[in-house]
């Protein structure tokens, strides 16, 4: 029983992390049609902020976590203002290339001005201990991660449904020009999307750092790749799709880890992506992809 609960929790916490990251990608994509591959570097900014706090001898974990999240939000806003706003009206390919460019520039800045080697961050170890619930021993980090993601999704849902700016973000995913015609400033809608994206990256950063215990310039690459896959599976542009894709990917990963024989242990990702491919054969636009007029192409 304990084994099953542990694996379910594993799947939930993996999925929660992917869902947080996928939501960050999806909220920007839904408005701009931009896959922000620099999202991983925003996570790294959060990680290096923790290093900076450590070097300033600030060890209070609450300050460290809040600082990392704020830094990620600020980095995301800055990227929107400096890199993405100038190409907002350009072809989607230009936006995609800009995102890759920003990602490479930031990685190289970390390499040149910080360090190419991993730097340990110990201030988050307190998040990870063993807790016992109903006689079953669980890892606290996984419980925190799952709960945080659930709270964030509820808060995001309330924001998107109950506030004018949230409604504008949802509406902009369908018809941005019409949102402007209601008098809402375009720059505010983009800024809020990037701010939320940064917040989600910052929160994910806390859990990634708590698990890894170190930061390097490529910290965000793999998580964002997984988040991208989660978005594709869920349906790019759909926020519920991003959450579903994240949790589904987490569940498939854990299922493969548990079910595959040890001799095939190194092939886990191959099996995961095979299942992803099968899902995409079934639903080529993703499970919850927004309805799109196909016209004569069908």
């Amino acid at each position: 029983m304990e084994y099953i609960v542990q694996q379910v929790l594993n799947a939930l916490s993996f999925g929660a992390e992917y869902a947080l990251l996928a939501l960050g990608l999806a909220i920007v994509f839904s408005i701009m049609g931009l896959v922000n591959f620099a999202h991983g570097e925003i996570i790294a900014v959060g990680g290096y902020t923790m290093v900076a706090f450590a070097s300033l001898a600030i060890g209070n974990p609450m300050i460290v976590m809040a600082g990392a999240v704020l830094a990620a939000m600020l980095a995301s806003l800055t990227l929107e203002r400096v890199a993405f706003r100038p190409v907002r009206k350009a072809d989607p390919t230009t936006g995609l290339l800009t995102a890759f460019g920003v990602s490479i520039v930031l990685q190289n800045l970390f390499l040149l001005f910080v360090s190419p080697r991993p730097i340990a961050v110990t201030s988050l170890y307190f998040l990870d201990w063993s807790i016992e619930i109903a006689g079953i021993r669980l890892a606290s980090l996984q419980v925190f991660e799952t709960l945080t993601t659930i709270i964030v999704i509820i808060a995001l849902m309330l924001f998107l449904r109950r506030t004018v700016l949230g409604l504008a973000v949802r509406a902009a995913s369908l018809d941005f020009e019409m949102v402007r015609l209601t008098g809402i400033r375009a720059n505010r809608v983009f800024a809020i999307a990037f701010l939320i994206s940064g917040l989600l990256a910052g929160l994910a950063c806390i859990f990634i750092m708590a698990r890894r215990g170190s930061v390097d310039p490529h910290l965000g690459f793999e998580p964002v790749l997984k988040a991208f896959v989660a978005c594709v599976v869920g349906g790019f542009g759909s926020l519920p799709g991003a959450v579903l894709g994240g949790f589904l990917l987490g569940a498939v990963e854990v299922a493969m880890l548990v079910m595959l024989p040890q001799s095939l242990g190194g092939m886990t990702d191959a099996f995961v992506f095979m299942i992803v491919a099968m899902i995409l054969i079934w639903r080529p636009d993703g499970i919850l992809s927004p309805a799109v007029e196909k016209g004569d192409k069908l």
Partner: protein
Amino acid sequence: MLTIQDLHVFHGPIEAVHGISLEVEKGKCISLLGPNGAGKTSTISAITGIARSTGLIRFEGRDLSRESVEARIAAGIAVSPEGRRIFSNLTVLENLTLGAALQKDAVEKAKDTDHWFSLFPILAERRDQSAGTLSGGEQQMLAIARALMARPKILLLDEPSLGLAPKIVRQIFDLIADLKARGMTILLVEQNATQALKLADYAYLMSSGRIVAHGTADDLGKSDKLMAELTGVA
């Protein structure tokens, strides 16, 4: 109230409207008529700032020609666009809430919502329904109600009868007549000249990006030019 002088509208390098001038007086319903491709929607897009244009757009004495879309809306211009463009992924109520995005007072916003729901009872019935599930006529009503939620000084209605059944078209025009009777200033863009001229105090006829005739609804209704332009039969 709204003065347009020597307006040229561009879509990329293409000039869609070639130096038109028109005037909309407060409390009047002015109609802009013409066949497809005449430049009517381009004119509306230029007034709201969506399309690039040159020339003068003066609203209540203020030159809006160089103002942003958002500033023009804040000045009191609201639009119910061609094709309705309701937010189909939002509910009816959420669409109306967004229409009043610039209204900060929640109590006033709630009052406005109740007011427009009383004028559009079918929308009140479907307030929590996804807007994408509404019929064409209901979507048109929603587009107009969303524009009215902004408490505009002038309402730009772009082809409100487009694609609707004759019975629904009559309902929409009855609604516009009601708004006019309440003192709303309206610039009505239509291909349905018969219905539009019943409502309009003054009308402009556009063809190939130019105003080719204008006058009171009676005068223009009797003009051979109107039928020739709209039907293509000289």
